[in-house]
């Protein structure tokens, strides 16, 4: 307490200066609609500049980790390619049609993990071909989020760490389906619920997205099962899932536009036709 009083005695003038200056700025900012708008724009500009600065520092510091991850990814893709080549007879030539627009590599400008509704800001927008609904994946192909809004040069994605994002998913081995979502709290742990009680669940089983999940292409890895327990009514499993993507260290991500989100959404909006039992019998 004495130290605090001594500290305040020593530093009260600079503290007062900062407080009064901030107070005057707030007063001025609120004095007219013009100054309100300009102050807001200026503060956004400064915040954006800070985000960019810290983002580039983070990317520089994570270069080594990214290089290792890329090398591993290349090795994995090479081995897959070799496996495909061995499957095709030597005398058959296969032409692969690559659609470059389907994959967009970009950088994360800003990423929050400490709210219930977390969002990621990405440095590419409409001018780069980004569209609402595209999936956001890590360089390793793990699920991260889905684009919800775009401007000319930037995009916002709802992160997996967003309580309103609910993904239809299945177990990669057992193929039992369920609902995957983040309940809030630990940024590495999500839940996989409504899994039938007959499912064979093992710790470490991968949970992957289903094609009609709205958010991710079929087979996108969401995480791995850590534990599973039956619900109170003993009819369903609720699994704790460790997210595959490290959401706190996102830097380079890939946007994918390979699934039919709009068609799925349209189907969901349409009323379900009533099937008449007598018609079926006929």
């Amino acid at each position, binding site marked *: 307490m004495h130290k605090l009083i001594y500290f305040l005695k020593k530093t009260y003038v600079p503290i*007062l*200066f900062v407080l009064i*200056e901030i107070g005057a*700025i707030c007063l*001025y900012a609120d*004095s007219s609609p013009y*100054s309100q708008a300009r102050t807001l724009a*200026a503060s956004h500009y400064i915040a954006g500049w800070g985000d960019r600065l810290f983002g580039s520092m983070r990317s520089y510091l994570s270069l080594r980790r990214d290089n290792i991850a890329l090398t591993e990814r290349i090795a994995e893709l090479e081995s897959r390619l070799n496996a495909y080549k061995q499957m095709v007879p030597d005398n058959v030539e296969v032409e692969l049609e690559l659609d470059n627009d389907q994959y967009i590599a970009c950088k994360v400008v800003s990423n929050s993990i400490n709210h219930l509704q977390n969002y990621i800001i990405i440095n590419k927008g409409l001018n780069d071909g980004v569209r609402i609904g595209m999936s956001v994946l890590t360089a390793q192909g793990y699920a991260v989020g889905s684009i919800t809004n775009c401007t000319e040069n930037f995009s916002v994605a709802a992160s997996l760490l967003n309580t309103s994002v609910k993904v239809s998913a299945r177990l990669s081995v057992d193929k039992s389906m369920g609902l995957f979502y983040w309940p809030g709290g630990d940024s590495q742990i999500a839940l996989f619920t409504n899994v039938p009680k007959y499912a064979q669940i093992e710790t470490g089983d991968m949970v992957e997205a289903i094609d009609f999940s709205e958010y991710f292409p079929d087979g996108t890895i969401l995480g791995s099962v850590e534990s599973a327990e039956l619900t109170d009514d003993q009819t369903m499993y609720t699994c704790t899932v460790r997210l595959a993507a490290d959401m706190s260290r996102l830097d380079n991500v890939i946007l994918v536009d390979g699934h039919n989100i709009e068609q799925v959404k349209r189907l969901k909006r349409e009323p379900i036709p009533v099937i008449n039992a007598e018609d079926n019998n006929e």
Partner: protein
Amino acid sequence: MKHLKQYILFFTIVLASQVLLFNNLTFSTYFAPLVYIVCIIMMPLGTSSLKMMIAAILIGGLMDLSMGTMGLNVIATLPVAYFRRPILSLTASYTDVDGDGDTPSPMRLTRFNNYVIAMVVLHNLIFFGFEHLTLANFGFIALRFLCSTLASTALVYLFIIIFTPKLTRR
């Protein structure tokens, strides 16, 4: 405080001329002299940072009331008052002349001009920066800043020349 009566008279004349004369000059948008900063410039050299800040809040607040700019003059005046001591040590140094008291003057400070110009430029930079808060129309803002700073500096010098003999008289 030594020369208290002279200081009160000096502050009254400066602030009155700012409110009644310079705030009402409308012949050009590029010309907005802010002479009241001379009150901070001419405060006695030994004045503590806290007293400087109180003076800055009172002067800035009065100017805000007269100009209808809520907080803008305080925003500009407060840092100038708070950082006066570092600005002084960076731009000027004390002479060996004794007997002029604590009042800043060309006799008491070498490179007095640098000190005055630095104070006026810093004040105008903050004032016009916060007044516009944007880099759109940069040319207009830069020209307004330049013209107003030149006018302010000239008028500040005029006040210093007129009042220094009174404030430094033994």
